[in-house]
Protein backbone atom coordinates (compact mmCIF):
# COMPACT_ATOMS: atom_id res chain seq x y z
CA UNK A 1 0.00 0.00 0.00
CA UNK A 2 1.10 3.53 -0.52
CA UNK A 3 -0.46 6.83 0.24
CA UNK A 4 -1.30 8.50 -3.03
CA UNK A 5 -2.96 11.56 -1.54
CA UNK A 6 -1.11 14.54 -3.00
CA UNK A 7 -0.73 17.69 -0.93
CA UNK A 8 -3.26 20.26 -2.12
CA UNK A 9 -2.21 23.86 -2.66
CA UNK A 10 -3.91 26.21 -0.24
CA UNK A 11 -7.22 27.27 -1.75
CA UNK A 12 -8.45 30.85 -1.46
CA UNK A 13 -12.20 31.06 -1.93
CA UNK A 14 -12.03 34.38 -3.74
CA UNK A 15 -9.93 37.41 -4.49
CA UNK A 16 -11.23 39.29 -1.42
CA UNK A 17 -9.50 39.72 1.92
CA UNK A 18 -12.30 38.66 4.27
CA UNK A 19 -11.88 34.87 4.11
CA UNK A 20 -8.58 33.33 5.18
CA UNK A 21 -8.09 29.60 4.56
CA UNK A 22 -6.97 27.96 7.81
CA UNK A 23 -4.46 25.91 5.81
CA UNK A 24 -2.22 29.00 5.60
CA UNK A 25 -1.28 28.40 9.25
CA UNK A 26 -0.22 24.78 8.90
CA UNK A 27 0.78 24.03 5.31
CA UNK A 28 4.45 23.04 5.14
CA UNK A 29 4.87 23.80 1.44
CA UNK A 30 3.38 27.23 1.89
CA UNK A 31 5.76 27.89 4.80
CA UNK A 32 8.71 26.95 2.58
CA UNK A 33 7.42 29.21 -0.18
CA UNK A 34 7.07 32.10 2.29
CA UNK A 35 10.77 31.86 3.07
CA UNK A 36 11.60 32.33 -0.60
CA UNK A 37 8.90 34.74 -1.72
CA UNK A 38 8.61 36.87 1.40
CA UNK A 39 11.58 36.67 3.77
CA UNK A 40 14.23 36.23 1.05
CA UNK A 41 12.09 38.14 -1.43
CA UNK A 42 11.48 41.85 -2.00
CA UNK A 43 10.93 42.88 1.63
CA UNK A 44 12.97 44.63 4.29
CA UNK A 45 13.52 42.35 7.30
CA UNK A 46 14.21 44.08 10.60
CA UNK A 47 17.59 42.85 11.85
CA UNK A 48 18.63 44.94 14.86
CA UNK A 49 19.09 48.45 16.18
CA UNK A 50 22.02 50.60 15.12
CA UNK A 51 22.51 51.19 18.85
CA UNK A 52 23.33 47.49 19.19
CA UNK A 53 26.30 47.90 16.83
CA UNK A 54 28.15 50.77 18.52
CA UNK A 55 31.71 50.14 17.29
CA UNK A 56 33.69 48.80 14.37
CA UNK A 57 33.51 45.03 14.72
CA UNK A 58 30.32 44.99 16.80
CA UNK A 59 28.10 42.24 15.47
CA UNK A 60 24.83 40.46 16.18
CA UNK A 61 23.49 37.21 14.85
CA UNK A 62 19.83 37.18 13.93
CA UNK A 63 17.45 35.89 11.27
CA UNK A 64 15.68 37.00 8.13
CA UNK A 65 12.72 34.69 8.40
CA UNK A 66 14.37 31.36 9.18
CA UNK A 67 17.62 32.25 7.41
CA UNK A 68 20.44 32.92 9.89
CA UNK A 69 22.18 36.26 9.38
CA UNK A 70 25.23 38.09 10.76
CA UNK A 71 24.93 41.89 11.03
CA UNK A 72 28.19 43.73 11.65
CA UNK A 73 29.68 47.21 11.59
CA UNK A 74 32.97 47.55 9.70
CA UNK A 75 35.83 50.05 10.07
CA UNK A 76 34.22 52.33 7.50
CA UNK A 77 31.31 52.82 9.92
CA UNK A 78 28.92 51.06 7.54
CA UNK A 79 26.73 48.14 8.53
CA UNK A 80 26.93 44.91 6.54
CA UNK A 81 24.96 41.69 6.74
CA UNK A 82 25.47 38.27 5.29
CA UNK A 83 24.01 34.85 5.63
CA UNK A 84 25.40 33.05 8.69
CA UNK A 85 26.41 30.03 6.61
CA UNK A 86 29.89 28.96 5.68
CA UNK A 87 30.45 28.72 1.92
CA UNK A 88 32.23 25.40 2.46
CA UNK A 89 29.89 22.96 4.20
CA UNK A 90 27.17 25.31 5.38
CA UNK A 91 27.92 25.47 9.09
CA UNK A 92 27.10 28.59 11.08
CA UNK A 93 29.93 31.12 10.84
CA UNK A 94 29.16 33.00 14.05
CA UNK A 95 27.79 31.15 17.08
CA UNK A 96 27.33 33.90 19.68
CA UNK A 97 24.30 36.21 19.80
CA UNK A 98 26.54 39.24 19.78
CA UNK A 99 30.14 40.29 20.19
CA UNK A 100 32.99 42.16 18.66
CA UNK A 101 35.26 40.66 16.05
CA UNK A 102 37.90 41.64 13.49
CA UNK A 103 36.77 38.83 11.26
CA UNK A 104 34.81 35.59 11.34
CA UNK A 105 36.05 32.06 11.17
CA UNK A 106 33.95 28.95 10.75
CA UNK A 107 34.88 26.45 13.47
CA UNK A 108 34.44 23.41 11.24
CA UNK A 109 37.36 23.81 8.77
CA UNK A 110 38.50 27.33 9.68
CA UNK A 111 37.37 29.11 6.52
CA UNK A 112 37.46 32.78 7.32
CA UNK A 113 35.50 35.86 6.33
CA UNK A 114 35.92 39.58 6.71
CA UNK A 115 33.26 41.80 8.24
CA UNK A 116 31.62 42.28 4.87
CA UNK A 117 31.09 38.56 4.38
CA UNK A 118 33.83 38.00 1.81
CA UNK A 119 35.61 34.68 1.95
CA UNK A 120 39.21 35.65 2.75
CA UNK A 121 40.86 32.46 3.90
CA UNK A 122 40.65 28.73 3.20
CA UNK A 123 42.65 26.58 5.60
CA UNK A 124 45.32 24.49 3.84
CA UNK A 125 44.35 26.14 0.54
CA UNK A 126 47.77 25.30 -0.90
CA UNK A 127 47.82 21.88 0.77
CA UNK A 128 50.18 20.51 3.42
CA UNK A 129 53.75 19.62 2.39
CA UNK A 130 52.74 19.69 -1.24
CA UNK A 131 49.84 17.31 -0.71
CA UNK A 132 46.15 18.10 -1.09
CA UNK A 133 44.85 21.63 -1.08
CA UNK A 134 42.27 23.28 -3.26
CA UNK A 135 42.59 23.17 -7.05
CA UNK A 136 44.44 26.17 -8.48
CA UNK A 137 41.22 27.10 -10.24
CA UNK A 138 39.37 27.65 -6.94
CA UNK A 139 38.41 31.29 -6.70
CA UNK A 140 37.54 32.57 -3.23
CA UNK A 141 35.75 35.59 -4.71
CA UNK A 142 33.27 33.24 -6.35
CA UNK A 143 32.32 31.70 -3.01
CA UNK A 144 30.78 33.20 0.04
CA UNK A 145 27.56 33.45 2.01
CA UNK A 146 24.81 35.43 0.38
CA UNK A 147 24.95 39.11 1.27
CA UNK A 148 22.01 41.24 2.26
CA UNK A 149 21.38 44.78 1.22
CA UNK A 150 21.24 46.97 4.30
CA UNK A 151 19.08 50.00 4.94
CA UNK A 152 18.99 52.00 8.14
CA UNK A 153 16.00 54.09 9.05
CA UNK A 154 15.77 56.05 12.30
CA UNK A 155 18.25 53.70 13.92
CA UNK A 156 16.46 50.55 12.73
CA UNK A 157 18.62 48.22 10.64
CA UNK A 158 16.79 46.38 7.88
CA UNK A 159 18.20 43.77 5.50
CA UNK A 160 17.01 42.35 2.21
CA UNK A 161 18.17 39.50 0.00
CA UNK A 162 16.40 41.11 -2.93
CA UNK A 163 17.87 43.42 -5.55
CA UNK A 164 14.36 44.47 -6.52
CA UNK A 165 13.13 45.81 -3.20
CA UNK A 166 12.57 49.58 -3.30
CA UNK A 167 14.44 51.91 -0.96
CA UNK A 168 13.37 51.50 2.65
CA UNK A 169 11.73 54.94 2.64
CA UNK A 170 9.70 54.01 -0.41
CA UNK A 171 8.94 50.57 1.05
CA UNK A 172 7.62 52.10 4.26
CA UNK A 173 5.83 55.04 2.67
CA UNK A 174 5.64 58.55 4.01
CA UNK A 175 3.05 58.00 6.75
CA UNK A 176 4.81 54.99 8.27
CA UNK A 177 8.17 56.80 8.08
CA UNK A 178 6.71 59.74 9.97
CA UNK A 179 5.22 57.49 12.63
CA UNK A 180 8.56 55.71 13.14
CA UNK A 181 10.44 59.01 13.32
CA UNK A 182 7.91 60.23 15.86
CA UNK A 183 9.18 57.64 18.35
CA UNK A 184 12.78 57.12 17.23
CA UNK A 185 13.59 60.81 17.03
CA UNK A 186 16.73 60.66 19.18
CA UNK A 187 19.33 58.05 20.18
CA UNK A 188 18.04 55.02 22.05
CA UNK A 189 19.65 52.38 24.18
CA UNK A 190 18.59 48.83 25.00
CA UNK A 191 17.31 48.28 28.54
CA UNK A 192 16.42 44.58 28.22
CA UNK A 193 15.83 41.73 25.80
CA UNK A 194 13.36 38.88 26.15
CA UNK A 195 12.28 36.12 23.80
CA UNK A 196 8.81 34.65 23.88
CA UNK A 197 8.23 31.29 22.18
CA UNK A 198 4.75 31.35 20.66
CA UNK A 199 2.99 28.03 20.00
CA UNK A 200 1.59 29.18 16.66
CA UNK A 201 2.29 30.17 13.09
CA UNK A 202 4.04 33.54 12.71
CA UNK A 203 1.15 35.03 10.75
CA UNK A 204 -1.23 34.56 13.68
CA UNK A 205 0.97 36.82 15.79
CA UNK A 206 1.33 39.45 13.07
CA UNK A 207 -2.44 39.44 12.60
CA UNK A 208 -2.86 39.82 16.36
CA UNK A 209 -0.62 42.89 16.36
CA UNK A 210 -2.71 44.45 13.59
CA UNK A 211 -6.03 43.44 15.11
CA UNK A 212 -7.31 46.52 16.92
CA UNK A 213 -10.69 44.79 17.34
CA UNK A 214 -9.46 42.33 19.99
CA UNK A 215 -7.50 44.72 22.18
CA UNK A 216 -10.22 45.85 24.55
CA UNK A 217 -12.03 42.49 24.46
CA UNK A 218 -9.18 40.11 25.26
CA UNK A 219 -7.00 42.46 27.32
CA UNK A 220 -9.06 43.51 30.31
CA UNK A 221 -6.24 45.36 32.02
CA UNK A 222 -6.13 47.84 29.13
CA UNK A 223 -9.83 48.41 29.19
CA UNK A 224 -10.19 48.71 32.94
CA UNK A 225 -7.60 51.45 33.06
CA UNK A 226 -9.01 53.23 30.04
CA UNK A 227 -5.95 52.85 27.91
CA UNK A 228 -7.75 51.44 24.93
CA UNK A 229 -11.45 52.17 24.83
CA UNK A 230 -12.97 51.77 21.40
CA UNK A 231 -14.64 55.12 21.99
CA UNK A 232 -11.34 56.88 22.53
CA UNK A 233 -10.00 59.12 19.87
CA UNK A 234 -7.71 57.24 17.61
CA UNK A 235 -7.53 55.27 14.45
CA UNK A 236 -5.82 52.89 12.16
CA UNK A 237 -3.44 53.73 9.35
CA UNK A 238 -2.98 51.11 6.65
CA UNK A 239 -0.37 51.87 4.02
CA UNK A 240 -0.98 51.46 0.30
CA UNK A 241 0.56 47.98 0.11
CA UNK A 242 -1.53 46.88 3.10
CA UNK A 243 1.52 45.35 4.76
CA UNK A 244 2.31 48.10 7.23
CA UNK A 245 0.00 49.62 9.78
CA UNK A 246 -0.26 51.98 12.70
CA UNK A 247 -2.87 51.74 15.40
CA UNK A 248 -2.96 54.71 17.73
CA UNK A 249 -5.08 56.25 20.41
CA UNK A 250 -5.20 59.41 22.42
CA UNK A 251 -6.53 59.29 25.94
CA UNK A 252 -8.90 61.97 27.08
CA UNK A 253 -8.90 61.46 30.84
CA UNK A 254 -11.60 64.05 31.33
CA UNK A 255 -13.98 62.32 28.96
CA UNK A 256 -16.87 60.58 30.58
CA UNK A 257 -16.62 56.89 30.90
CA UNK A 258 -18.10 55.32 27.83
CA UNK A 259 -21.33 53.57 28.62
CA UNK A 260 -21.50 51.32 25.59
CA UNK A 261 -19.60 48.54 27.35
CA UNK A 262 -21.93 48.51 30.33
CA UNK A 263 -24.95 48.29 28.08
CA UNK A 264 -23.48 45.29 26.35
CA UNK A 265 -22.41 43.79 29.70
CA UNK A 266 -19.11 42.73 28.24
CA UNK A 267 -16.63 40.76 30.29
CA UNK A 268 -14.15 43.57 29.73
CA UNK A 269 -15.71 45.96 32.18
CA UNK A 270 -14.78 45.33 35.76
CA UNK A 271 -15.34 48.10 38.24
CA UNK A 272 -14.06 46.10 41.19
CA UNK A 273 -10.51 46.18 39.95
CA UNK A 274 -8.40 49.04 41.24
CA UNK A 275 -4.62 49.15 41.57
CA UNK A 276 -3.08 49.45 45.03
CA UNK A 277 0.09 50.90 43.54
CA UNK A 278 -0.90 52.88 40.45
CA UNK A 279 2.70 54.05 40.02
CA UNK A 280 3.02 51.22 37.49
CA UNK A 281 0.96 53.40 35.15
CA UNK A 282 2.42 56.75 36.19
CA UNK A 283 4.07 58.31 33.19
CA UNK A 284 5.35 61.56 31.87
CA UNK A 285 4.48 63.48 28.75
CA UNK A 286 7.16 63.13 26.12
CA UNK A 287 5.39 63.50 22.78
CA UNK A 288 3.75 66.77 21.88
CA UNK A 289 0.95 65.17 19.87
CA UNK A 290 -0.91 63.59 22.79
CA UNK A 291 -0.69 60.09 21.31
CA UNK A 292 -0.30 57.75 24.26
CA UNK A 293 -0.40 54.50 22.35
CA UNK A 294 1.07 53.70 18.98
CA UNK A 295 1.53 50.18 17.67
CA UNK A 296 3.25 50.13 14.30
CA UNK A 297 4.02 47.12 12.15
CA UNK A 298 6.19 46.72 9.07
CA UNK A 299 5.69 43.77 6.74
CA UNK A 300 6.58 41.03 7.26
CA UNK A 301 7.53 40.84 10.94
CA UNK A 302 8.51 44.07 12.67
CA UNK A 303 6.68 45.95 15.41
CA UNK A 304 7.51 49.29 17.02
CA UNK A 305 5.60 49.93 20.20
CA UNK A 306 4.94 53.04 22.24
CA UNK A 307 2.56 52.35 25.09
CA UNK A 308 2.67 55.48 27.21
CA UNK A 309 6.43 55.66 27.99
CA UNK A 310 7.08 51.98 27.41
CA UNK A 311 9.05 51.63 24.19
CA UNK A 312 10.03 48.41 22.50
CA UNK A 313 10.72 46.83 19.16
CA UNK A 314 9.55 43.32 18.42
CA UNK A 315 10.93 40.95 15.81
CA UNK A 316 8.66 38.11 14.67
CA UNK A 317 10.59 35.05 13.51
CA UNK A 318 8.93 31.92 12.09
CA UNK A 319 10.28 28.63 13.43
CA UNK A 320 8.43 26.02 11.39
CA UNK A 321 4.70 26.12 10.71
CA UNK A 322 3.49 26.02 14.33
CA UNK A 323 6.13 27.90 16.30
CA UNK A 324 7.26 31.51 16.34
CA UNK A 325 9.90 33.38 18.25
CA UNK A 326 9.05 36.87 19.34
CA UNK A 327 12.10 38.92 20.26
CA UNK A 328 11.32 41.87 22.49
CA UNK A 329 13.92 44.61 22.76
CA UNK A 330 12.95 47.16 25.41
CA UNK A 331 14.46 50.58 24.80
CA UNK A 332 14.82 53.96 26.42
CA UNK A 333 16.36 57.17 25.15
CA UNK A 334 20.07 57.60 25.75
CA UNK A 335 19.38 60.89 27.52
CA UNK A 336 16.70 59.54 29.89
CA UNK A 337 16.92 60.85 33.43
CA UNK A 338 17.05 58.14 36.13
CA UNK A 339 13.42 58.97 36.99
CA UNK A 340 12.32 58.59 33.38
CA UNK A 341 14.17 55.29 33.09
CA UNK A 342 12.44 54.04 36.22
CA UNK A 343 9.07 54.88 34.66
CA UNK A 344 9.95 52.81 31.59
CA UNK A 345 11.08 49.88 33.74
CA UNK A 346 7.84 49.94 35.72
CA UNK A 347 5.62 50.34 32.67
CA UNK A 348 7.39 47.37 31.11
CA UNK A 349 5.10 45.31 33.36
CA UNK A 350 2.46 46.07 30.74
CA UNK A 351 4.22 44.21 27.92
CA UNK A 352 6.31 41.16 27.21
CA UNK A 353 5.66 37.51 28.14
CA UNK A 354 4.22 38.52 31.54
CA UNK A 355 2.70 41.81 30.43
CA UNK A 356 -0.57 42.92 31.98
CA UNK A 357 -1.80 43.90 28.54
CA UNK A 358 0.09 41.46 26.37
CA UNK A 359 0.36 38.09 28.05
CA UNK A 360 -2.87 36.92 26.42
CA UNK A 361 -1.35 37.51 22.98
CA UNK A 362 1.24 34.86 23.79
CA UNK A 363 -1.45 32.24 24.20
CA UNK A 364 -4.26 33.22 21.86
CA UNK A 365 -2.38 32.30 18.69
CA UNK A 366 -1.92 28.83 20.14
CA UNK A 367 -5.65 28.62 20.83
CA UNK A 368 -6.24 29.24 17.12
CA UNK A 369 -3.50 26.84 16.05
CA UNK A 370 -5.04 24.08 18.20
CA UNK A 371 -8.58 25.00 17.25
CA UNK A 372 -8.03 24.68 13.52
CA UNK A 373 -6.19 21.36 13.66
CA UNK A 374 -8.99 19.59 11.78
CA UNK A 375 -10.16 22.48 9.65
CA UNK A 376 -7.57 22.99 6.92
CA UNK A 377 -10.38 23.23 4.34
CA UNK A 378 -12.31 25.84 6.33
CA UNK A 379 -11.64 29.56 6.61
CA UNK A 380 -11.51 32.46 9.04
CA UNK A 381 -13.88 35.43 8.80
CA UNK A 382 -12.17 38.85 8.75
CA UNK A 383 -15.05 41.16 7.99
CA UNK A 384 -15.25 43.57 10.92
CA UNK A 385 -15.45 47.04 9.43
CA UNK A 386 -16.22 45.77 5.94
CA UNK A 387 -13.98 44.36 3.27
CA UNK A 388 -11.52 47.18 2.64
CA UNK A 389 -7.95 47.47 3.84
CA UNK A 390 -7.70 51.21 4.26
CA UNK A 391 -7.04 53.75 7.00
CA UNK A 392 -9.91 54.84 9.16
CA UNK A 393 -11.01 56.27 12.45
CA UNK A 394 -12.11 54.12 15.31
CA UNK A 395 -10.74 50.70 15.96
CA UNK A 396 -13.76 48.35 15.68
CA UNK A 397 -12.26 47.15 12.46
CA UNK A 398 -10.05 44.46 11.00
CA UNK A 399 -8.88 46.71 8.16
CA UNK A 400 -5.19 46.31 8.95
CA UNK A 401 -5.54 42.52 9.25
CA UNK A 402 -7.01 42.56 5.73
CA UNK A 403 -4.09 44.78 4.77
CA UNK A 404 -1.71 42.05 5.87
CA UNK A 405 -3.43 39.55 3.60
CA UNK A 406 -3.41 42.03 0.74
CA UNK A 407 0.37 42.32 0.98
CA UNK A 408 0.79 38.61 1.69
CA UNK A 409 -1.18 37.50 -1.37
CA UNK A 410 0.66 40.03 -3.49
CA UNK A 411 4.04 38.62 -2.43
CA UNK A 412 2.94 35.00 -2.64
CA UNK A 413 1.17 35.39 -5.97
CA UNK A 414 -1.87 33.83 -4.29
Amino acid at each position, binding site marked *: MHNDIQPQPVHWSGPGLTRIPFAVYSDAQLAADEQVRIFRGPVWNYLCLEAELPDAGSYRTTFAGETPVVVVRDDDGEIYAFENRCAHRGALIALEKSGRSDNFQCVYHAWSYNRQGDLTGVAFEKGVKGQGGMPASFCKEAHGPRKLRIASFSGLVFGSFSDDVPSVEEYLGEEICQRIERVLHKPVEVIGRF*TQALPNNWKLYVENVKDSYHASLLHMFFTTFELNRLSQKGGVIVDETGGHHVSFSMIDAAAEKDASYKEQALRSDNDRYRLKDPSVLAGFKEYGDGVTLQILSVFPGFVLQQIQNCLAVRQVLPKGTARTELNWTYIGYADDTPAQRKVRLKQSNLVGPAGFISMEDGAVGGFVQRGIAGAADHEAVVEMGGDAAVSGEGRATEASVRGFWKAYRQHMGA
Partner: protein
Amino acid sequence: MIDLLALCAFNAAYADAIDSDALEQWPGFFTEDCHYRITHIENEREGLAAGIVYADSRAMLEDRIAALREANIYERQRYRHLLGMPLVQRADAELAEARTPFLVARIMATGQTEVFATGVYQDRFARQDGQLRLQSRVAVCDSTVTDTLLALPL
Protein backbone atom coordinates in the same frame (compact mmCIF):
# COMPACT_ATOMS: atom_id res chain seq x y z
CA MET B 1 21.51 35.13 63.41
CA ILE B 2 19.48 34.24 60.32
CA ASP B 3 20.54 30.67 59.64
CA LEU B 4 20.37 28.30 56.71
CA LEU B 5 17.47 26.35 58.12
CA ALA B 6 15.40 29.51 58.47
CA LEU B 7 16.04 30.38 54.83
CA CYS B 8 15.15 26.84 53.74
CA ALA B 9 11.91 26.95 55.70
CA PHE B 10 11.10 30.37 54.24
CA ASN B 11 11.67 29.14 50.69
CA ALA B 12 9.61 26.01 51.29
CA ALA B 13 6.67 28.12 52.45
CA TYR B 14 7.14 30.55 49.52
CA ALA B 15 7.09 27.74 46.96
CA ASP B 16 4.13 26.06 48.61
CA ALA B 17 2.09 29.28 48.50
CA ILE B 18 2.54 29.58 44.74
CA ASP B 19 2.24 25.88 43.93
CA SER B 20 -0.92 25.42 46.01
CA ASP B 21 -2.61 28.44 44.40
CA ALA B 22 -2.49 30.47 47.61
CA LEU B 23 -1.26 33.37 45.49
CA GLU B 24 -2.76 35.98 47.81
CA GLN B 25 -0.15 34.92 50.39
CA TRP B 26 2.73 35.53 48.00
CA PRO B 27 3.15 39.31 48.50
CA GLY B 28 3.36 38.71 52.25
CA PHE B 29 6.77 37.09 51.80
CA PHE B 30 8.14 40.52 50.87
CA THR B 31 8.78 43.70 52.80
CA GLU B 32 6.53 46.62 51.99
CA ASP B 33 9.32 48.43 50.20
CA CYS B 34 10.74 45.55 48.19
CA HIS B 35 12.21 44.75 44.83
CA TYR B 36 11.06 41.78 42.76
CA ARG B 37 12.18 41.15 39.21
CA ILE B 38 12.16 38.27 36.76
CA THR B 39 14.94 38.45 34.20
CA HIS B 40 17.49 36.14 32.60
CA ILE B 41 21.19 35.57 32.72
CA GLU B 42 22.07 37.50 29.56
CA ASN B 43 20.37 40.69 30.72
CA GLU B 44 22.09 40.34 34.09
CA ARG B 45 25.46 39.83 32.44
CA GLU B 46 25.00 42.94 30.29
CA GLY B 47 23.64 45.00 33.15
CA LEU B 48 20.27 45.53 31.44
CA ALA B 49 17.81 46.57 34.09
CA ALA B 50 14.45 45.52 32.63
CA GLY B 51 12.47 42.53 33.83
CA ILE B 52 9.50 40.68 32.43
CA VAL B 53 8.09 41.39 35.88
CA TYR B 54 9.41 44.47 37.67
CA ALA B 55 8.04 45.55 41.04
CA ASP B 56 9.33 47.99 43.63
CA SER B 57 6.62 47.63 46.25
CA ARG B 58 4.61 44.88 47.90
CA ALA B 59 1.49 46.66 46.63
CA MET B 60 2.65 46.06 43.06
CA LEU B 61 2.91 42.35 43.85
CA GLU B 62 -0.63 42.44 45.26
CA ASP B 63 -1.76 44.17 42.08
CA ARG B 64 -0.17 41.46 39.98
CA ILE B 65 -2.09 38.78 41.83
CA ALA B 66 -5.28 40.83 41.55
CA ALA B 67 -4.67 41.15 37.80
CA LEU B 68 -4.14 37.40 37.49
CA ARG B 69 -7.37 36.75 39.35
CA GLU B 70 -9.51 39.50 37.84
CA ALA B 71 -8.14 40.80 34.58
CA ASN B 72 -5.73 38.54 32.78
CA ILE B 73 -6.87 35.61 30.69
CA TYR B 74 -4.71 32.53 30.46
CA GLU B 75 -5.15 28.82 30.29
CA ARG B 76 -5.46 27.12 33.67
CA GLN B 77 -2.01 26.13 34.88
CA ARG B 78 -0.01 25.54 38.01
CA TYR B 79 3.63 25.29 38.99
CA ARG B 80 5.80 22.88 40.91
CA HIS B 81 8.82 24.65 42.42
CA LEU B 82 11.87 22.59 43.33
CA LEU B 83 14.26 24.83 45.27
CA GLY B 84 17.84 23.98 45.98
CA MET B 85 19.92 24.69 49.06
CA PRO B 86 20.47 28.42 49.61
CA LEU B 87 24.08 29.47 49.25
CA VAL B 88 24.34 31.92 52.13
CA GLN B 89 26.61 34.77 51.14
CA ARG B 90 26.13 36.94 54.17
CA ALA B 91 24.06 36.62 57.34
CA ASP B 92 23.69 38.38 60.65
CA ALA B 93 20.86 38.89 63.12
CA GLU B 94 18.82 41.18 60.89
CA LEU B 95 19.94 40.64 57.28
CA ALA B 96 20.94 37.79 55.00
CA GLU B 97 21.94 37.43 51.37
CA ALA B 98 21.69 34.14 49.56
CA ARG B 99 21.50 32.53 46.14
CA THR B 100 19.04 29.69 45.73
CA PRO B 101 18.67 27.63 42.54
CA PHE B 102 15.15 26.89 41.33
CA LEU B 103 13.48 24.58 38.89
CA VAL B 104 9.86 25.31 38.05
CA ALA B 105 7.74 22.80 36.17
CA ARG B 106 4.48 24.03 34.63
CA ILE B 107 1.43 21.78 34.58
CA MET B 108 -1.07 22.86 31.92
CA ALA B 109 -4.81 22.36 31.74
CA THR B 110 -4.14 19.63 29.18
CA GLY B 111 -2.42 17.62 31.94
CA GLN B 112 1.03 18.01 30.45
CA THR B 113 4.01 18.87 32.65
CA GLU B 114 7.11 20.55 31.24
CA VAL B 115 10.13 22.28 32.68
CA PHE B 116 9.16 25.94 32.47
CA ALA B 117 12.08 27.72 34.08
CA THR B 118 15.36 27.09 35.83
CA GLY B 119 17.60 29.69 37.37
CA VAL B 120 18.65 31.25 40.61
CA TYR B 121 17.00 33.57 43.12
CA GLN B 122 19.34 36.35 44.17
CA ASP B 123 17.89 37.28 47.53
CA ARG B 124 18.23 39.81 50.29
CA PHE B 125 16.32 38.91 53.44
CA ALA B 126 15.49 41.08 56.43
CA ARG B 127 13.99 40.24 59.79
CA GLN B 128 11.02 42.47 60.55
CA ASP B 129 8.92 42.08 63.70
CA GLY B 130 10.45 38.67 64.19
CA GLN B 131 9.43 37.61 60.67
CA LEU B 132 11.83 36.85 57.84
CA ARG B 133 10.92 38.76 54.67
CA LEU B 134 12.41 39.41 51.26
CA GLN B 135 13.73 42.90 50.67
CA SER B 136 14.76 41.82 47.23
CA ARG B 137 14.32 38.73 45.08
CA VAL B 138 15.64 38.72 41.53
CA ALA B 139 14.71 35.53 39.68
CA VAL B 140 17.48 35.14 37.11
CA CYS B 141 16.34 32.55 34.59
CA ASP B 142 18.88 30.42 32.76
CA SER B 143 16.93 30.49 29.52
CA THR B 144 16.36 33.70 27.61
CA VAL B 145 13.17 32.23 26.15
CA THR B 146 9.80 32.15 27.90
CA ASP B 147 7.35 29.62 26.54
CA THR B 148 3.96 31.13 25.60
CA LEU B 149 3.52 33.41 28.61
CA LEU B 150 4.45 33.85 32.24
CA ALA B 151 1.35 34.30 34.35
CA LEU B 152 2.13 32.94 37.82
CA PRO B 153 5.18 34.33 39.65
CA LEU B 154 8.43 32.42 40.00
